[in-house]
């Protein structure tokens, strides 16, 4: 008997997958060392006790998934990906993407498996890009539109398929800036990022693949996949006649609803529909690159609901969730074109505004603050306020970490100064 228990414990200690048992409130009952190894960097020296509390920052929708599961037994989620954002610790080799599966064992008993799939996700990413690349080439046997573009974005040559696909005659496009013929709009009709960014990314990574709506000469539109490959032909870098990029354009069937749903699932917060943290990080990195290159202003506003815990404690989590949804809906409806409204975790949101300086960010934050304070939520007419901290890339010399830290610092100064206010300067 002693030996059986010994063997069983050795088995659990050595298991290369994290196993966690927890209750409805998230309190951890049992876990094995592998789970602890993955959770310790997230939980800090206090150690993991409440599953939801320390995962909140990385997977704010986890609690909703668990609470929203109506059956007493069954699989709640299989292969749920949690994008971990640990800053410096992440760079020291901590997990970046965790994969969690959660089952409900009884009314108040849950079990989760956890594994670090960072390497697998990075590999998937590379494969997806390589796959798109090869598809573009293989399909090209039946004819593809090809452009040679100089370093300053001028079309140097175009093939017959380009003329057929777009309706623009070759002689009309050669010598013209490529941006006159390609706009690149995503599924929502928003610009998918400007071409200069894509050329920059192609120079950095070798190639870049994007897709979006494009217009033909007759005004009709088509869904276009475009591959930009940086060419390393010898020649003077500034030679305007030198083809610096090749562009392959494919007219492909537009994404159907399920693909759009998948995009929403990957970039949106499950509860509120705001952008998720992963998407936020991606846009933040993009804006940083833009700022570094063009000094085009961009700003970040952090906002945190005041006394939100009291709302949860008084009215319960479902009402708290309703408050989060209302605030997110308001934020999403007020951000300008190109901006991102994101739920960072818990009751914390962020607004990323490309092409907005600190004064513009401050003005928008002030409008949001006033509108949030006028909300009357649910049957009880709950009132809520929020505190805001704004910062701009220009203040931190383009560092994303310093930008977040500065906006955070002002947010907490706003809290200390009495809440329900916006701070856009350091006292």
């Amino acid at each position, binding site marked *: 008997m002693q030996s059986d*228990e*010994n*063997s069983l*414990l*050795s088995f*659990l*200690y*050595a298991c*290369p997958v994290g196993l966690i048992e927890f209750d409805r409130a998230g309190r*951890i*009952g*049992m*876990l*094995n*060392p*592998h*789970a*602890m*190894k993955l959770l*310790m*960097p997230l*939980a800090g*020296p206090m*150690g*993991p*006790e409440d599953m939801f509390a320390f995962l909140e920052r990385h997977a704010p929708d986890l609690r909703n998934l668990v609470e929203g599961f109506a059956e007493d037994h069954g699989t709640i989620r299989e292969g749920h990906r949690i994008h971990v954002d640990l800053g410096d*610790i992440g760079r*020291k*080799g*901590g997990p970046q993407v965790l994969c969690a599966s959660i089952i409900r064992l009884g009314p108040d008993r849950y079990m989760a498996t956890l594994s670090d799939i960072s390497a697998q996700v990075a590999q998937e990413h590379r494969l997806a890009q390589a796959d798109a690349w090869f598809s573009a080439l293989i399909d090209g046997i039946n004819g593809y539109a090809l452009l040679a573009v100089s370093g300053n974005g001028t079309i140097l040559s175009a093939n017959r398929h380009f003329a057929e696909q777009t309706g623009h005659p070759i002689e009309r496009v050669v010598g013209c800036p490529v941006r006159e013929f390609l706009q690149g709009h995503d599924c929502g009709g928003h610009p998918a990022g400007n071409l200069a960014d894509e050329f920059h990314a192609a120079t950095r990574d070798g190639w870049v693949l994007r897709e979006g709506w494009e217009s033909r000469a007759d005004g009709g539109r088509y869904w276009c996949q475009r591959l930009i490959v940086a060419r390393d032909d010898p020649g003077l870098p500034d030679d305007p006649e030198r083809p610096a990029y090749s562009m392959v354009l494919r007219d492909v069937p537009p994404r159907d609803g399920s693909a759009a749903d998948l995009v929403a699932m990957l970039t949106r917060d499950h509860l509120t529909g705001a952008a998720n943290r992963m998407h936020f990080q991606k846009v933040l990195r993009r804006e940083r690159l833009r700022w570094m290159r063009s000094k085009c202003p961009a700003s970040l506003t952090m906002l945190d609901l005041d006394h939100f815990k009291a709302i949860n404690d008084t009215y319960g989590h479902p009402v708290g969730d309703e408050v989060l949804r209302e605030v997110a809906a308001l934020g999403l409806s007020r951000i300008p074109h190109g901006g991102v409204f994101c739920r960072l975790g818990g009751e914390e949101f962020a607004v990323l505004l490309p092409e907005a300086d600190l004064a513009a960010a401050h003005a928008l934050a002030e409008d949001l603050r006033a509108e949030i304070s006028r909300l009357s939520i649910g049957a009880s007419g709950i009132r809520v306020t929020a505190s805001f901290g704004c910062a701009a890339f220009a203040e931190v010399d383009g560092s994303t970490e310093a930008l977040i830290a500065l906006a955070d610092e002002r947010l907490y100064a706003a809290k200390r100064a009495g809440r329900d206010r916006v701070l856009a300067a350091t006292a």
Partner: protein
Amino acid sequence: MHLASYGFETVSLADLEQADRGELDAAPFGIIGMRPDTVADVYNETEAELSGVSPRNVLGAPFFDTIGQCMNNFMVAQRFEDEPELDDIVPFVLTLRMRPTRVRLRLLQMPQVERRYILIER
């Protein structure tokens, strides 16, 4: 020398190296010793009691890959790689018998001694 008269915070690496099996087993705290390749060659009775795993399942195996996985990170395992001279006490949470358990770990390493130690105080 009598290890029992030393405490978790005061025992030295030299004391541990000189102690015999009985003295190590009698210590009121867990003692794990391992070679530079992380293979465990010391695992006292107190630690076996705490973890529920007998020494024969631990000795001779790479410690951080088997029973000590939760310490295989920058907070413990990496420090032995990075700091040739190490004597530090860190608060930690272990999963003794799969229950989260707050402990204090003392990490001990010296350049002239091949074996490194982790002491565990519950």
